[in-house]
């Protein structure tokens, strides 16, 4: 048995071991890697950033996923909330899946730990879980009056009485809805609310769904998308690069400046997506190597068989 024959007959468990190492090591031993931001992500960042410090503008995050797609979507939600809390952008959070309600709390609390001054009802309102059957009535009702469409927030308080609602009435003020979704991509928002009320809609989606969502950016129905872990990593970078230093966004700087993830000033939770991307990069390269080596072995074997015949 020569080397390639041995390689061809390699026990699967070695491959499994390599994959396991390729995933775990980059997660534990963080190495620096570049993150390239793309237009769909930058658009969302820029729009949110333009609401900074204004009490007559707000964004809304619709959590439309459960824990199964959390690894991809949760870092996005954390990054957006961190951006908003740092830059004093008012935020609504809502979910129409019962299983998403704890994720909303978890995301808010994760970010809030770093922002002790942020107050519920003043800087953000968690509308919480609303039954799926009310999805459309709420989407349409918010065009008229948010505090009437969803009477109470997750804490059972009447929305109309909360300080944050003072200058916010409908989509004219809450002008951006970001839906983080494991299956769809904001369809209800951009089909019903976008044309009627002119609200901007963005989507945070898993990587497998991204290809289906791109056409809607072209048609202008979505202002931007965060595509999978990659989108989350890009957003994290933008927040680290601009928001944290209260600097305005610049595409040129975003695309040419590198933000290190090995330095310890940024907590792990705010660079989870970028570290995750490290693991993903290593695994993708590993699999490509597997394909290449496997095929080299296959061709050598085939040539030998031909020669033998």
């Amino acid at each position, binding site marked *: 048995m020569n080397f390639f024959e041995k390689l061809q007959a390699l026990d699967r468990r070695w491959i499994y071991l390599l*994959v396991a190492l390729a995933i775990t090591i980059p997660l534990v031993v963080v190495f620096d*890697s570049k993150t390239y931001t793309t237009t769909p992500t930058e658009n969302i960042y820029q729009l949110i950033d333009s609401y900074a410090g204004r009490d007559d503008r707000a964004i809304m995050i619709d959590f439309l996923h459960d824990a199964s797609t959390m690894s991809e979507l949760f870092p996005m939600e954390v990054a957006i909330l961190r951006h908003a809390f740092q830059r004093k952008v008012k935020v609504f959070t809502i979910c129409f899946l019962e299983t998403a309600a704890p994720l909303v709390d978890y995301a808010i609390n994760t970010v809030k730990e770093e922002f002790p001054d942020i107050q519920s009802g003043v800087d953000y309102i968690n509308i919480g879980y609303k039954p799926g059957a009310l999805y459309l009535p709420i989407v349409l009702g918010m065009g008229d009056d948010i505090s009437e469409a969803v009477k109470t927030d997750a804490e059972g308080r009447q929305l109309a009485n909360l300080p944050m609602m003072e200058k916010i009435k409908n989509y004219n003020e809450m002008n951006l809805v970001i839906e983080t979704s494991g299956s769809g991509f904001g369809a209800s928002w951009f089909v019903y609310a976008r044309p009627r009320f002119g609200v901007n809609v963005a989507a945070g989606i898993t*990587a497998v769904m991204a290809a289906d969502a791109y056409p809607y950016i072209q048609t202008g129905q979505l202002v931007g998308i965060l595509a999978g872990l990659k989108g989350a990593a890009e957003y994290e970078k933008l927040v680290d690069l601009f928001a944290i230093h209260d600097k305005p966004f610049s595409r040129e700087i975003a695309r040419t400046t590198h933000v290190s993830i090995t330095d310890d000033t940024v907590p792990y939770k705010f660079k989870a997506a970028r570290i995750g991307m490290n693991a993903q990069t290593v695994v993708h390269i590993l699999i*490509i190597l*597997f394909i290449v080596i496997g095929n080299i072995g*296959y061709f050598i074997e085939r040539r030998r068989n031909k020669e033998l015949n």
Partner: protein
Amino acid sequence: MKRQIPLALVIILCFLFVGHTFIPHKISDNFYQWWLSWVRTMTSFAVVLGVMSLFTVHWGKISRRMPNWQYSIVTLGALVFTSASGFIWGTQQGTPYMWLFKNVQMPMSSTMFSLLAFYIASAAYKAFRARSPEATVLLVSAIIVMIAQVPIGMAISKWIPEISNWILNVPNLAAKRGVALGVGLGGTAVSLKIMLGIERTYLGSGD
């Protein structure tokens, strides 16, 4: 008779439901809603069939001491305990049933799902071969799309993400739509076969 009655039922109902597609009238819709409520009720009874099958198969294994019969005890034990815990303590948050669901069922399912990563790697190594020109195309595009998914693709060339997007949006989408068209028509054809009584697989015959 044993076959004629079910066959007649299926054919009559098929035509009624095709009719419902074209008739939005209240009467037609009322009938459809009434029918749906029956379907919902009846299908839940079918779970008994599944549980019975599970019991017969595993009980047979245990009583005949077939190889690996010990696993069957675990299966039956888990089945009985999980359902009993649901019946006794309910299925709310915080009950033993939910505890099992969260701490046994979910992690085990996630584990199986995560195995995919490993299996993709081993399939890439063992089975993904450029055996034919078509396979070579598949292989090359797979590599491009995979590289484009991670920052290194952009680092190599800004064209890689573009090519990857093109692959996904043009040839991939075209093939998908082609298959979807065939699937749609094929599905219609099978439905028609059922309506006309040509296809009787669902009655439990191999023909």
